[in-house]
């Protein structure tokens, strides 16, 4: 491949060398595709487009070169990042000294080229192409979902092809329901093949094909009349016309009637930027409209369709208070004052350490920060923890110890990496964006992927080397030279020693000492190796960073560290107990034994996540729950307050790579309050007068107080993803079973996905976890 590469700007993009070709899991990747390789290091090429001089990297296609100087060439089959198709002929331009019009999407720039993109000849050709595209097109723009943001409509508006010379009756076909979320309208399809390629090259699902040929050509799904796929909806997103439409959005509104707000997906830990489109205080759609954010156009099924839990009619909208063994609706005032009174009573009777707090993986950093402040300074206990889904603490500790806190890898780093080592996780199901970035790194940058995992995984198709191991921890030990090595691990070590700047991605299979060992060894790899710890949810990382941990203050400062305590004590003007608190498992054991008498749960459902029995929770004298839904935990609570969802509040979240991004309030839900508001009001009930008027005030304090979070606020507020580089001395992991992934699938994310109609409507969601599509 590299040889072909050096000669021509094109390379055949077959799969990378696979020593284990024989046993890789089918189905197999589609045929090799042609993609141009841009060489930014090469000698720049200068050409003229519409009289403007353009200098660009060799290998650039004309359409991109034109874009660089603000000249837009219309295109249908061309889509940045996908292989070239050259099917639609919309992008034709005239190039001097070339006889015929040329397609700008497949022509590579060369020195001295003189290009005209707007001559009469070009315009006429485009108009003629449009006439062809419209031969069978129904022109039902007034009812088409795409109307107003349709690339075909735009081009017809620009070039005008209103009259047609075709007299034949238009071929019509009824729309098809490919799945509950993907519909196909054959007559609108202009056969640009974008959907096929995005599914194949982007998703590695390859669910679409072309049926028949010529004028009868049609997009066909992989299971007869239906799709069986990852249901990411990318195909809908890239479709330039209204041929593929979304089951949640179709025929609901016109695009211009909605307001669009850029925020962050609230499901997994990858932190995709998404644009929520709102009308009448309801979310109608999500896509990454401006392709901002490190995910580009990518969203998985959860991000694109699974936001509808927000609109669910099962949302809690009024506080509920237990009276005579029954939960009954009450006022906010009553709920919070009851909570404060009961907690004060219990603390007075049994001491502050009889109370414990469980935080969330989904709430904002500011809320997590306030939650642990509330526990530590108002309740007076370090008994605060959350469901930890990845070992961020050990990563921070190891990088800090090695003085290497510049080695946190970002989501972009995964995309750009030339070498990736993946251990103990299956990102395809649990981290769809990470999997996408890895696939793109392999496909577009010829990256080598090395996998060490106990289970088969779909990404094996992209791997240069896949090692099936019994135990990833033992494998790490062997790699680092402290355990029994095997010849296979020797090969892996050998291969990695020839790579540069490897990005190491690891899941919950590695914890505590194993992470420390991995980091120590990883840092000895050539170049600037970097690390990502994978944690399940939208703010799993943030919960750890903000110190929702019994032994760790915000920024991974040990509770036992008197200087760190003093720093926060002076910031908060209150004392922090010096004794580390109980971890989640110890909290549940304490409830069982009667030592823990009151529990506050914010945005978490331990009955599900930790398998705590409701009977155990019933032993509590007082259980307070703040949640969106009447979960199993909320059902046994004494006071339940309705919390606002991610779409209804501002704040920040930190993704699994440590990149912080802003949530933007897009709508309101009557009756609910954000955890920020709940905590400030609850603190006030205890007589504390916290100085925060908005979550931004809290963020400013975080920036000032939390090590690694000294980020430029403007970069964040304009929608950027800012890297945090925590450093600290977290105490060693108390017990391994504190860290476990919930093993969510492509269609689940803890308790909230249960309230998503869209996700539950999918046939694929009923398949066993780990099914490869």
């Amino acid at each position, binding site marked *: 491949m590299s040889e072909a590469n050096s000669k021509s700007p094109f390379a055949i993009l077959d799969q990378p060398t696979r020593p284990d070709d024989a046993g890789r899991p*089918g189905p197999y990747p589609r*045929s090799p595709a042609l993609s141009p390789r841009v060489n930014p290091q090469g000698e720049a090429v200068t050409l003229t487009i519409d009289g403007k001089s353009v200098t660009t990297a060799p290998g650039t296609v004309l359409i991109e070169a034109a874009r660089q100087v603000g000249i837009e060439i219309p295109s249908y089959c061309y889509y940045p990042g996908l292989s070239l198709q050259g099917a639609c002929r919309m992008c034709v331009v005239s190039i001097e000294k070339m006889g015929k019009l040329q397609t700008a999407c497949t022509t590579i720039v060369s020195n001295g080229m003189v290009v005209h993109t707007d001559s009469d000849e070009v315009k006429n050709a485009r108009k003629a192409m449009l006439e062809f595209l419209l031969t069978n097109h129904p022109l039902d723009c007034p009812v088409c979902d795409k109307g107003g943001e349709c690339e075909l409509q735009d081009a017809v508006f620009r070039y005008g092809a209103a009259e047609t010379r075709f007299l034949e009756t238009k071929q019509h076909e009824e729309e098809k329901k490919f799945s509950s979320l993907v519909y196909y309208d054959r007559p609108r399809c202009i056969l640009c093949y974008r959907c096929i390629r995005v599914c194949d090259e982007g998703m590695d699902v390859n669910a*679409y*094909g*072309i049926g028949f*040929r010529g004028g009868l050509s049609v997009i066909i799904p*992989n299971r007869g009349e239906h799709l069986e796929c990852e249901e990411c909806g990318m195909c809908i997103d890239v479709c330039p016309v209204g041929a593929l439409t979304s089951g949640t959005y179709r025929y609901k509104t016109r695009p211009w009637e909605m307001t669009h707000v850029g925020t962050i997906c609230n499901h997994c830990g990858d932190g995709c930027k998404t644009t929520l489109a709102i009308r009448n205080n309801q979310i109608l759609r999500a896509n990454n409209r401006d392709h901002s954010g490190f995910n580009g156009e990518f969203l998985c099924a959860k991000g694109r369709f699974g936001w509808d839990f927000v609109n669910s009619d099962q949302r809690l909208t009024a506080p509920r208070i237990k009276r005579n063994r029954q939960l009954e609706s009450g006022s906010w005032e009553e709920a919070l004052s009851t909570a404060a009174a009961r907690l004060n009573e219990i603390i007075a009777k049994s001491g502050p350490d009889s109370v414990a707090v469980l935080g969330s993986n989904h709430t904002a950093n500011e809320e997590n920060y306030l939650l642990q402040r509330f526990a530590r300074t108002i309740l007076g206990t370090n008994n605060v923890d959350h469901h930890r889904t990845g070992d961020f603490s050990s990563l921070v500790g190891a990088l800090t110890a090695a003085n290497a806190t510049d080695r946190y890898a970002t989501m972009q780093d995964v995309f750009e990496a030339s070498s990736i080592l993946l251990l103990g996780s299956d990102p395809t199901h649990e981290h769809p964006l990470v999997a996408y970035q890895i696939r793109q790194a392999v496909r577009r940058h010829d990256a080598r992927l090395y996998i060490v995992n106990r289970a088969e995984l779909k990404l094996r198709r992209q791997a240069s080397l896949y090692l099936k191991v019994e135990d990833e921890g033992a494998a790490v030990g062997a790699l680092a030279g402290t355990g029994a090595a095997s010849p296979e691990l020797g090969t892996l070590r050998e291969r990695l020693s020839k790579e540069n700047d490897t990005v190491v991605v690891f899941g919950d299979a590695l914890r505590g000492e194993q992470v420390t060992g991995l980091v120590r060894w990883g840092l000895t790899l050539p170049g600037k190796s970097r690390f990502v710890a994978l944690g399940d949810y939208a703010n799993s990382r943030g919960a750890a960073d903000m110190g929702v941990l019994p032994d760790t203050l915000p920024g991974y400062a040990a509770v036992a560290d008197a200087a760190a305590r003093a720093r926060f004590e002076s910031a908060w003007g209150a004392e922090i107990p010096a004794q580390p608190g109980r971890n989640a498992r110890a909290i549940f054991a304490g409830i069982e034994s009667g030592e823990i008498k009151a529990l506050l749960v914010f945005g978490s459902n331990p009955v599900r996540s930790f398998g705590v029995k409701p009977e155990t929770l019933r032993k509590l004298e007082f259980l307070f729950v703040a949640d969106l839904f009447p979960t199993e935990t909320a059902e046994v609570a004494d006071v339940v307050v309705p919390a606002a969802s991610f779409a209804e509040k501002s704040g920040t979240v930190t993704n699994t790579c440590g990149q912080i991004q802003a949530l933007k309030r897009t709508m309101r839900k009557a009756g609910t309050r954000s955890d920020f508001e709940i905590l400030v009001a609850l603190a006030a009930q205890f007589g504390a007068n916290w100085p925060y008027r908005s979550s931004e005030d809290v963020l400013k304090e975080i920036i000032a107080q939390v090590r690694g979070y000294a980020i430029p606020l403007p970069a964040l507020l304009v929608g950027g993803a800012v890297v945090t580089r925590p450093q600290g001395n977290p105490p060693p992991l108390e017990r391994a079973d504190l860290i476990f992934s919930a093993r969510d699938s492509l269609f689940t994310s803890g308790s909230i996905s249960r309230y998503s109609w869209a996700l539950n409507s999918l046939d694929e969601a009923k398949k066993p976890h780990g099914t490869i599509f």
Partner: protein
Amino acid sequence: MLSDALKAKFDKIIARYPLKRSAIVPLLMFAQDEIGYVSDEAIEEIARRVEVRPIEVIEDIGYYSMLHRQPLGKYNIQVCTNVSCLLRGGEEILEHCSKKLGIGHKQTTPDGLFSLEEVECLGACCGAPAMQVNYDFYENLTPQKIDALIEKLRSDGAKKSP
């Protein structure tokens, strides 16, 4: 079930090509010859062998009109109506067949004996009007010749099928 002979043939054909998937069309042809059409099982098997996904095999079947996913009649009558045959009465031949068999383009008789197809040039222009029945050619056709042939095929077919 695909026969062992067919599977052996698959292996031989695939080995001929530098890229496995180049063998898709010949494999489909041979599968169709044996089974009478391309069954779902054959699609899966071919996809597996040439390491593509079934949808790519299905695309090829859609593209090539000589490949079928439904069983055809025992005798597939393909009448040419391209230029030379058209000029020499190809359309009438087609119509005659259609009336005689009571079926139209791409249809099969209820007894499963005949199917009819209108096709493009068979490369038999010198004998126009021409048609092909399975792999046999018939040239300089007239309605009388058709009648005789269909009668013969009907009795052959009745004899051979148990």
